[in-house]
């Protein structure tokens, strides 16, 4: 079984987010694997361990500096890594187009059985690429998956919805976006890191026809300031709330 995992890099949570000339100031940014992608990769590797003859290949559309992340993915259990060089993605649609081209090129036109993505990236937070990729590949996609079981030709999935859980059964091939809770990603070991150095990283160049659907602009670092009115005690708080908002009086 061929399993593809799409990865991306995001600023780590300790990075200082600032903007210069309308773009992210990268000088104070440390990039790491998108946290949701770790769940995607872990699930792919777990499946490989259960289903004999499976091959996990990770893909990222990124500059050469993303090789470190790919090495980490290999140490976490991926078999092959592909660094896709292409124009810098400008919106989720363009990213999905590039991933589609890379998958078609790498697998020589035969769709992989499973494509895993993280639910969203923590930088742009669009959560659109996985479903877009599914539509471009002409296959089903399931977003925000929290549980996955395989039996024969069938996949049993669960995704969280408002107030409950949706249970879905479907066939291969499918694009799955991984939500927190799907699994507990493993840590790398020294041995795995050593072995990962021997695994190949392929370079693949793709060019994509298509204009972006959305233009992003006007970044602003967020300043949240309200003036908080502190209540001396609980009774005063209740009075403040009843005076300032109609909640406790309307009904």
């Amino acid at each position: 079984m061929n399993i593809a995992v799409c990865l991306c890099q995001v600023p780590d949570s300790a990075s200082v987010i600032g903007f210069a000339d309308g773009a992210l100031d990268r000088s104070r940014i440390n990039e790491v694997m998108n946290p949701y992608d770790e769940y995607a990769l872990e699930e792919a590797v777990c499946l490989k361990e259960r289903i004999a003859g499976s091959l996990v290949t990770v893909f990222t559309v990124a500059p050469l500096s993303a090789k470190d992340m790919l090495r980490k993915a290999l140490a976490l259990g991926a078999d092959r890594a592909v660094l896709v060089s292409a124009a810098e993605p400008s919106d989720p649609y363009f990213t999905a187009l590039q991933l589609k081209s890379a998958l078609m090129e790498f697998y020589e036109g035969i769709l992989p059985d499973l494509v895993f993505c993280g639910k969203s990236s923590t930088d742009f937070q669009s959560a659109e690429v996985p479903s877009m990729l599914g539509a471009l590949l002409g296959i089903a996609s399931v977003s925000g998956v929290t549980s996955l079981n395989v039996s024969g030709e069938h996949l049993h999935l669960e995704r969280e919805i408002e107030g409950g859980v949706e249970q879905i059964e479907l066939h291969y091939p499918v694009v799955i976006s991984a939500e927190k809770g799907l699994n507990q990603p493993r840590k790398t070991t020294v041995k795995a890191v050593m072995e990962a150095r021997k695994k190949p990283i392929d370079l693949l160049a793709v060019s994509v026809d298509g204009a972006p659907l959305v233009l992003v602009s006007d970044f602003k670092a967020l300043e949240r300031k309200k003036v908080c009115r502190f209540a001396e005690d609980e009774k005063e708080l209740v009075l403040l709330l009843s005076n300032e908002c109609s909640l406790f009086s309307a009904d």
Partner: protein
Amino acid sequence: MTRFLVFLEQREGVLKKSSIDAWNRVQEIAALSAGAMVTGLIAGPVDRQPIGDLLAGDGVVYHANEELLRPYRQEFYTRLVTSLIKQESISALFFADSSLSRDLAPRLSVLLKASLLSGDLLFNRQGHPDGSFRPVYSGLATASFLPQRNITIYNLSPSRGMVTRSSADGTIQVLPIELHQQSSDNLLAEVRRIVLRQNSLDIAEAGIIVAGGRGMGSSAGFALLEELAALLGGAVGASRFAVDEGWRPHAEQIGQTGKTVAPQLYFACGVSGAPQHLAGVASSAIVVAINSDHDAPVFQVADFGIVGDVHLVLPKLIEALKEFLKKK
């Protein structure tokens, strides 16, 4: 003539409040932007409510009243929406942000070559919706997103202090629409069933949310929040820390890796206020913070606050509220 389409989501035969809210907001926008027409689409049966009574303004609502569409099915829903958009020459499609719209909207965007925008609306000088802005980088920044195509899809965040108007003025005409089945349909993703949690109000639809964080100390500490929520008819929410510790289920998590909420009243109890959490509550109408640290960032976004240990403050607050409600 500008034509807007609002996707009205039903869950288990009931129209979702967030969808009705979106419809009513789009009606207001249409009224301001000189004569835009609002059309609705419902996929699946609606059991309990007469549709026209719930929606404000004038318009046509297309209703695909088929059992097959009761659960969300990606392929069928995609086909239904795309065919209606083409048939009615729709220029903008609106969703209320939900797990369904997050799954469906990106596919529609690809198939219709439509610009997909989420968050809060931006308007041009004529009062037409013309983009969106929303948090990026874990809630540490915001950005604007501008459409580049003729058809736009908006995935709307809940409006500030979401209120569903109960009185419906105007005339809503409900028309049937059919899903045309195809021979390949048995190959498609099949939602088997939906399992809803019992007795829990969904935080995404709650008017009052009582949320707890690290300061609650344990899962047992949340009993106080459940009591407060029950008293106010609200729902319990949790910070990422509380969920990671296993004190509460992920479904209750508010913030960047959880849900974005927009209640009338939000209590942040023992929540320090990481930017990721605050990004999820920014649309709340009123925020009340209770924290023992006077300098906790949560107070920077709070309207009202009490400095003190949640374990001491909450029981007194519950008492004070009971007292107040009794007098009323």
